């Protein structure tokens, strides 16, 4: 459902300050209602306010408790939305695969070949270049060759 231009959706989850403001507004309504009632019975506004506060009890713990309950609830809802979206994405993807199976097979084969070629080359490089030789005391391996300087022959392996 598109919003009219220039209108942004409310941020979700609402920032802490907004949730706290809503809780304070709810409590304030309660206190105001009690004050109205007491004033109607003949209390002075100041006395009515302190009596309303007394009947309500401590404000801060109530506000904090409501705040934490609301935040926990929003986190749970966010998790639910995340998994629902994930599920929808998955179904969307599966529908796409079913609608164009040739493309899907092409993609799968391309990936398979790519991954396979990579794995093969890496396996080779790993065995030849990266892994140490499978001998005991391999730091003491030596290479031997002989040279006939007059004839110019070389026997045994030697870098050219």
């Amino acid at each position: 459902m598109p919003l009219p231009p220039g209108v942004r959706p409310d941020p979700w989850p609402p920032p802490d300050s907004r949730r706290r403001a809503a809780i304070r507004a709810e409590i304030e309504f309660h206190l105001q209602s009690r004050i109205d009632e007491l004033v109607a019975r003949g209390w002075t506004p100041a006395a009515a306010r302190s009596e309303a506060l007394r009947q309500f009890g401590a404000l801060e713990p109530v506000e904090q408790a409501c705040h934490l309950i609301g935040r926990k609830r929003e986190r749970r809802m966010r998790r639910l939305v995340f998994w629902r979206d994930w599920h929808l994405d998955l179904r969307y993807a599966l529908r796409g695969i079913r609608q164009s199976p040739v493309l899907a097979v092409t993609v799968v084969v391309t990936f398979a070949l790519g991954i396979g070629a990579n794995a093969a080359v890496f396996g080779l490089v790993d065995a030849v270049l990266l892994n140490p030789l499978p001998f005991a005391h391999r730091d003491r391996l030596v290479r031997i060759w002989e040279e006939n300087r007059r004839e110019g022959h070389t026997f045994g392996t030697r870098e050219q």
Partner: protein
Amino acid sequence: MLGPLHGYAIATRIRERSDGALLVEEGALYPALHRLEARGWIDAEWGISATNRRARYYSLTGDGRRRLKAETASWRRYVSVVEKVLAPGEA
């Protein structure tokens, strides 16, 4: 069943019906309401009160109604069992 009520109306009702024995501090009602809302047993909506102020109105959800029924039955059972245990001269 009751229509939507704001916290103040709920507090007043509880206080009147219990002769002030329940809900000594009215503030304690609000975390309870928010918890019920988080559990999905009540819904909350902002509305305008009879005194023309913005207030948060609570109403039972279908789940909440079922839960209330179950909890009420369980509470009555509990009370009647305790009553039997406490009844003098029958054990």
